[in-house]
């Protein structure tokens, strides 16, 4: 396999960082949309290479972070049923609901399984006809085709003991929400490359034009991100606000049409609640038409206590890029990965967890061992 080292080359990174330094004349705030990009930035210590003028803020592109607490509670309630095998991607298991996470109920005996693909969950349904197999279909446009395909395949094969608990979210409406907020600090975007491999980037043109903001479709390796920052800075310095594609080796303007067709057949656009951000119109997918019979929401009516959120955590500000994780009073003190107050501390893609694990800001070494002692 290639692309493991080519995009992590130190010399090339220094060249790109040098080009950014030469281009910058004043401070700019750039948001990387996707949690995978946040992960790379923090894991590779990429901010060490950037000039002080560039401030990166970490966007809402972490499905674990933005899945609403009500849905976690629903997942937990469904998983607790003795007739259910509950399947999820790994990092959803640790996300705290109102009282419990999926890990907690797994420890209490619920049949919760980590799968790598919704089609694996479908296989489980075929192998366990006496059980109800439920897949937690979260994620952005990137995971939508596979989840759509699972519903399509279940329908095609006439499998009835399978359902999806859907909480799909869409990037462009979230970007618009951020940009139309009066608190918005973002001047340029690194759009999420993998989302665009599916959807293409045509839908970003009106956003760039309306909000006069540069949008650069960017990949996930350190060099991709440096390159994306350089392209964004060039636009900002030159007063341009265009949609550009840094990640051309994976993304085409029109995206992946067959994948889009499958999504359109199975899902329809719906308003969606984002954890920490609130409801955003037309910002998610739900099952449509004949596929609604695979909606776990319908199959397992939820009668739990309404979810409650406490004001202790500032994840909303974090997800909008208004605050950085280490600016939160609870960060690494009351809120740690073992005892997360909010979802961004849970997933490795979450900005708070990324800061905690790899935590280093310019001239400021976060010291979890010292500051975290209060919780231990």
């Amino acid at each position: 396999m290639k692309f493991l080292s080519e995009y992590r080359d130190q010399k090339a990174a220094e060249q790109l960082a040098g080009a950014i330094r030469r281009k910058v004349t004043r401070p700019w705030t750039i948001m990387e949309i996707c949690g995978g990009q946040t992960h790379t930035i923090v894991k590779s210590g990429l901010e060490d290479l950037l000039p002080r003028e560039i401030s990166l803020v970490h966007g809402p592109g972490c499905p674990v972070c933005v899945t609403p607490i009500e849905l976690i509670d629903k997942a937990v309630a469904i998983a607790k049923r003795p007739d259910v095998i509950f399947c999820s991607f790994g990092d959803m298991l640790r996300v705290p609901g109102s009282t419990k996470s999926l890990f907690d109920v797994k420890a209490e005996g619920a049949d919760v399984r980590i799968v790598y693909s919704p089609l694996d969950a479908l296989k489980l349904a075929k192998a366990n006809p006496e059980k109800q197999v439920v897949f937690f279909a979260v994620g952005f446009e990137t995971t939508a085709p596979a989840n759509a395909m699972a519903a399509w395949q279940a329908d095609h094969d006439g499998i009835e003991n399978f359902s999806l608990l859907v909480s799909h979210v869409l990037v462009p409406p979230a970007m618009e929400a951020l940009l139309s907020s009066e608190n918005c600090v973002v001047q340029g975007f690194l759009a999420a490359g993998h989302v665009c491999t599916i959807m293409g980037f045509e839908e970003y043109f009106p956003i760039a034009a309306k909000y006069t903001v540069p949008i650069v479709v960017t990949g996930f390796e350190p060099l991709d991100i440096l390159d994306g920052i350089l392209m964004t800075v060039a636009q900002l310095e030159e007063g341009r606000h265009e949609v550009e594609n840094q990640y051309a080796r994976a993304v085409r303007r029109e995206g992946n049409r067959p994948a889009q067709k499958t999504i359109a057949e199975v899902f329809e656009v719906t308003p969606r609640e984002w954890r920490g951000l609130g409801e955003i119109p037309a910002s998610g997918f739900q099952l449509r038409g004949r596929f609604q019979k695979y909606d776990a929401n319908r199959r397992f009516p939820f009668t739990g206590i309404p979810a409650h959120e406490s004001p202790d955590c500032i994840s909303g500000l974090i997800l909008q890029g208004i605050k950085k994780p280490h600016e939160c009073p609870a960060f690494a003190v009351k809120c740690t990965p073992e005892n997360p107050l909010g979802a961004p501390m849970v997933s490795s893609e979450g900005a708070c967890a990324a800061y905690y694990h790899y935590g280093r800001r310019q001239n400021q070494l976060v010291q979890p061992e010292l500051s975290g002692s209060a919780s231990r």
Partner: protein
Amino acid sequence: MADAKISSFSLNCPVPRVADDRIVLAHGGGGRLTHQLIEKIFMPAFSNDMLEQRHDGAVLAVNGSRLAFTTDSFVVRPLIFPGGTIGDLAVFGTVNDLAMCGARPLYLSAGFILEEGLEMETLRTVVASMQEAAAKANVRLVTGDTKVVDKGKGDGVFVNTSGIGLIEANVKGTIGPASVQPGDAVIVSGDLGRHGIAILSVREGLEFESPILSDTDCVWPAVEALLNAGVEVHCLRDLTRGGLATTLNEIAGDRNICIYLEESLIPVEETVQSACEILGLDPLYVANEGRFAVFVPAAQADAALEVVKRIPVSSGSVRVGRVEDSPGRTVVLQSRIGGNRVVDMLSGEQLPRIC
């Protein structure tokens, strides 16, 4: 919420119940929760000067010689995996813990907990691989025990092994975290992550172009060679559960030091690296069963490398970092592109990411 304005986001987050009233899988993961379990439950009950060493094995003075004593339990699934079985793991795991004390492994005990319904053929395979491993490690299995539990109450076979070894006369002082000094070089004995990924690939039905085999092996020959060559060995640690990152964090934490690593020097095979990329795992945290880290004075690092590279089990040894002369209880890694980051201790199981 349907009419919520964008400018009035509800900035909320939940306060979840802390999961400390039950054992969760991460308590066995070797990371923070394992350490909390040790500190909060086991240490208060059993604390003594030998446990306080927090080493892989206890060192006991008996009639003028020093013995090392250790125990380990093995609960791996699947029982038979690419490159090994639970049987050779159980032998090598305990033998390696003894080796990490600078002790020549001599005798093992074996306790089997078998699940009703286990196929006799599976047990035969496991026992045969134990026998082979014991022969390779030159240890004798001198006492044992067998229990059978109801179907559904075990996972086929659980094995516990305890081991006794003799600390070689040429070991001066104590080999362990307490002897680590600023300026020490950190050497790892080969490429990382193969055992964990071999297990995961079977467990999750992942197939790679070339199969990834576990690195399960006896590391005593490498340790013996270091000691015989007169290298001043400060600390030895096998890189099992939690991998290199966890091991180094334990030492950095115990000694209030900072360990500095260079990512570009850390050996990871391309297939393992690819698997980690696909699964969203970090090879620094993935388990090994035939790898160790050794801390030696910087001046002796080249000599130590030359010695261990001649031994098959450690022929892939590489110097990956150094102990800094600054407190901080942290492990810092210089990434390939030249940025720095803290390599923290894992807070739970490493979980595959969504995308």
